[in-house]
């Protein structure tokens, strides 16, 4: 984003006046038109093979035989150790699936039809058959590499390195709906994210709580000298691309922090009660999102996208206990978040979904872990979700089976990131004719959305 002279003046004005933005409330959209998406990124490559497990005897036996020590038990004397039955997804009568037991907090949402599962979704350049894959045709770049597959999940560009994220492009598309509000419509509570970089917009990265704003602002001569000096420096050194980018980010930050900081630090926020007893950084991120949504009228955006992240999923070793601990955090905090949205009366207007680098090999690796794989299962949660169901095709859990690319249990995706993302984009309000602006590969696929929203 290049900063216009108007942006610079605005940054200067706001930096000098901590009480700015009063005029913005007048632009607030009616609450009825509010929608938010929450991208929950499971950093490191979540093993989807233990997120959802088939429970029918034949399929479970096939799973348990290959997984060995990584298999989750179907029954157990230990409480909360066995897979939780989801029954049969609506679209798959006669089959039975189980959910990882550490996600028990989400089971009620499945039963209420508010939680759906997208099966075997991953990076694709175009629809891909096993024969084409084996002939080395149309493969996404750098499969199995963390950094590249994270980038592909966040950019929805798998042919070549993308520089903008689909969240950012969605924010671009929402510019019209969001009026003239200068707070970015995409807020990351987990640091820099390619997901949030748009062609015309850039994300706001906010802490989940704590100090977010210039220290030492005040009315003393020296405080004013410093604050005005910082604001004026933003307009200098514009020749150098790196310097301009640094100044642009600082300008956006100063524009937004005065509004955002009191919201994320509001201990009296109504949504906080739903998170009582939950701790940790990931929980803090979702709590901040809930607070920001509660305060949507103050922010004034009618479309918002949030990015939160939970790390540690690269379970090359010691997978069973590591994933269990992570899923407990994920499930408990997501369930609290959903209830908080219900409490605000916004359950139907807020949708959360998971993303991750890739799934992991069905076949265990030395060290009681698993290696990088490809197609993965993901969860979609919200009042508008057509839940209690699976979307896409569940792969055959067999080494060298029809879905396995190489004998290690790496599934060739049958749904692309583009199709998954487009489902959210449509719900968000992007017209069908505009979808390819957000998701440039979408037109290569016959089915342009998955139907879970």
């Amino acid at each position, binding site marked *: 984003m290049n900063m216009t002279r108007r942006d610079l003046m605005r940054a200067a004005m706001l930096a000098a006046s901590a009480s700015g933005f009063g005029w913005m409330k007048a632009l607030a959209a009616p609450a009825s038109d509010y929608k938010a998406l929450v991208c929950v990124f499971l950093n490191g490559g979540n093993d989807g093979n233990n997120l959802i497990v088939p429970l029918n005897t034949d399929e479970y036996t096939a799973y348990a035989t290959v997984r060995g020590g990584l298999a989750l038990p179907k029954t157990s004397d230990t409480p909360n150790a066995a897979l939780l039955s989801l029954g049969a997804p609506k679209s798959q009568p006669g089959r039975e699936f189980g959910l990882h037991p550490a996600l028990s907090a989400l089971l009620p949402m499945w039963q209420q039809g508010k939680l759906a599962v997208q099966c075997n979704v991953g990076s694709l350049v175009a629809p891909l058959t096993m024969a084409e894959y084996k002939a080395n045709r149309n493969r996404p770049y750098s499969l*199995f590499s963390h950094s590249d597959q994270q980038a592909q999940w966040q950019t929805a560009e798998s042919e070549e390195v993308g520089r*903008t994220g689909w969240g950012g492009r969605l924010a671009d598309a929402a510019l019209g709906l969001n009026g003239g509000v200068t707070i970015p419509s995409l807020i990351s509570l987990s640091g820099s994210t390619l997901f949030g970089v748009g062609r015309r917009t850039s994300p706001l990265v906010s802490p989940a709580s704590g100090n977010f704003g210039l220290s030492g602002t005040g009315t003393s001569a020296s405080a004013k000298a410093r604050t005005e000096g910082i604001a004026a420096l933003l307009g200098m050194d514009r020749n150098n691309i790196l310097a301009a980018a640094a100044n642009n980010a600082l300008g956006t930050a100063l524009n937004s922090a005065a509004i955002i900081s009191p919201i994320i630090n509001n201990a009296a926020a109504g949504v906080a009660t739903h998170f009582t007893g939950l701790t940790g950084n990931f929980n803090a991120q979702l709590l901040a999102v809930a607070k920001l949504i509660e305060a949507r009228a103050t922010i004034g955006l009618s479309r918002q996208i949030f990015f939160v992240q939970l790390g540690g999923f690269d379970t090359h070793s010691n997978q069973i206990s590591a994933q269990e601990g992570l899923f407990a955090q994920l499930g408990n905090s997501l369930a609290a978040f959903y209830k908080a949205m219900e409490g605000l009366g916004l359950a139907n207007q807020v949708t959360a979904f998971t993303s991750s680098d890739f799934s992991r090999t069905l076949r265990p690796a030395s060290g009681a872990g698993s290696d990088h794989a490809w197609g993965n299962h993901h969860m979609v949660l919200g009042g508008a979700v057509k839940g209690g169901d699976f979307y896409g095709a569940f792969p055959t859990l067999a080494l060298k089976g029809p879905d396995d690319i*190489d004998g290690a249990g790496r599934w060739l995706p049958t749904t692309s990131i583009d199709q998954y993302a487009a489902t959210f984009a449509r719900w968000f309000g992007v017209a069908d004719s505009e979808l390819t602006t957000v998701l440039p590969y979408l037109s290569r696929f016959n089915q342009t959305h998955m139907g879970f929203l």
Partner: protein
Amino acid sequence: MNTGWIRCGVALILLGTCHAAGKLGQFEAKGSYTGSPANLTLSATVEPAPQDKGAAGGIYVAALVQNDWLVLGPTGWVPSTMGFPAYRTGPLANTAVPVLSNLDVAAIECAQVFAGYGRTLDAMVGEMTYRSIYQVPALWPRTTPLPCSSMADADAARFLKQATFGATEAEIANVKQLGLAAWINAQFALPASRYPNLPETPSSRPAECDNICGRDKYSLFPLQTTFYKNALTAPDQLRQRVAFALSQILVVSGNEINMAYSYAPYQNILVDNAFGNFRDIMTQVTLSPAMGRYLDMVNNGKPSSASQQANENYARELLQLFTIGLYQLNQDGTVVRDGNGLPVPSYDEEMVRKFALILTGWTYPVKPGAAPAKYNPSYYLGPMVAVATNHENSSKALFNGYVLPAGQTPEKDLADALDNLFLHPNVGPFIGKQLIQHLVTSNPSPAYVARVSDAFANNGQGVRGDLKAVVRAILLDPEARGGMRSEVNYGHLREPVLVGTQLLRALGGQSDGVWLIGQNRSLEQNVFNSPSVFNYYPADYALVDGTEAPQFGIYNTNTAIARVNHLYSMVVSATATGNVITPGKPDTTVVGATGTSFDLSPLVALAGDPAKLVDRLNVLLLHGTMQPTMRDLLVKQVTAAGTDPLVRTRTAIYLTAASTAFQVER
């Protein structure tokens, strides 16, 4: 329309050609001696970018001879009266500029020539929306070029910002006396400042060891403080700086490993071999138990059945991050592309599997007193050891047609496979470019990368992988040198560690590291604790327009403010005792604690005249490159801050260091 601008410093002893190309068009400015008695000739050519050719605009040329401006008007060179006529106006076309000749070399120390094109100056001034449009007016007439006599000082300071943890006045004098190459050689000869070994970390802390004892004996804390102490005061600055860069390429992180005593040996591999051979680093890193544990090569056994596979974690990152990278590279670091314009991968998944199998059969070193076993219990001193019976040793086809024979020992397989990898042509450009990015600039030209790759391939005596040759090539390259660089993508965002150390060294400060550890943790650079093997920030991070900018991986709206607030804590709000500022008081629980402090007396003495104070900071922090508009602003703000000389001084440092002129090191 694009506008390009090149500035070329031509000192008498640095006669040569300066050339810039790319999106902005082509520019060349050069100097040469002609005639006898010797005189200097300056010339320039301007070639507008293809999309700008034929557009209405002007060709602008100026020269700075000694400290006098000359401009090239329609009728020839004339002394400047601060006006800046175009040499030619009308449709833009390739233009050779008439030479400025017969400069008397006896009377001048240096001369510089500038050339560029654009619309009229006024029109360009008014448009701020496209970054390259306003370059001509930005440099003219408001620019203050470095006086000739300070160009060498500025280059020495720039050099030290690249080669050390911060330029000090004493070291600048040292560099000027020795010359750059001799200074580098002197650094090569200094003994290494190493990390002390910690006692073996117990599985749980003994009851008699309290939190402070645990911090000092069983955490990374003592190694972090050692890092900062060495960064601030160790004589072997270049070694420490290169080792720090290597530690961000070959990453092991305490974020995942809680055995603190494994770290000193690992970091010492990088310190000891910073001027050694990259091939030795490959072996030692691969066999380090810290790395073995971090990326699961330790106890990576031969697959026992079809339902188990060799662990691919280390094999993959060895290829992807530590040696050759994802794509085939030309020696100039650019990516090799196929007929469809797509990058050509360096390896496939099958190659990862082969390396995973080659790397089977290694376990922890035998703990003194213990019996060797197939899977030794965890122990981190010394290299990992091989267990032949746990090694998969089938024949495998590797890179460049080499076939690893079947039936070899784990040691021989490892040596042969690493040799094969080391000879891969990617290693030089892949590692060399990253070292350039850590030390000098995020967007080196392909030619610069190629020169460094050449040094990696052959140190001049037929040796591949000699890091001395690589470091020398990086720091002495013409693209690294000069008193001031104004290419639009030059430089790099200072990583948080370097912001702190370079400020402290410039201000003559001291620190035991304790305060810096905490500050930089909140700026997302918690030393030795990167979030993953992809370092604190990804090596390939780029801006939306594709400009490479690795350090921007941890620069966002949150950390942008935090970086400014870091300076507030350090300089503005920190306790003052007289003129001594103490952002970090000595922590009484730390043995030998000195806290973090610096004495501002020399600057406070200048604060009666804000202009003098700002000018001094311009030299100390910006090697004299502060633009006049910024100088005007700072003088104004410092004056407005009040009459207290200490408050003025704090304000001036805060604003200078917060500016991108400092944050983006050029």
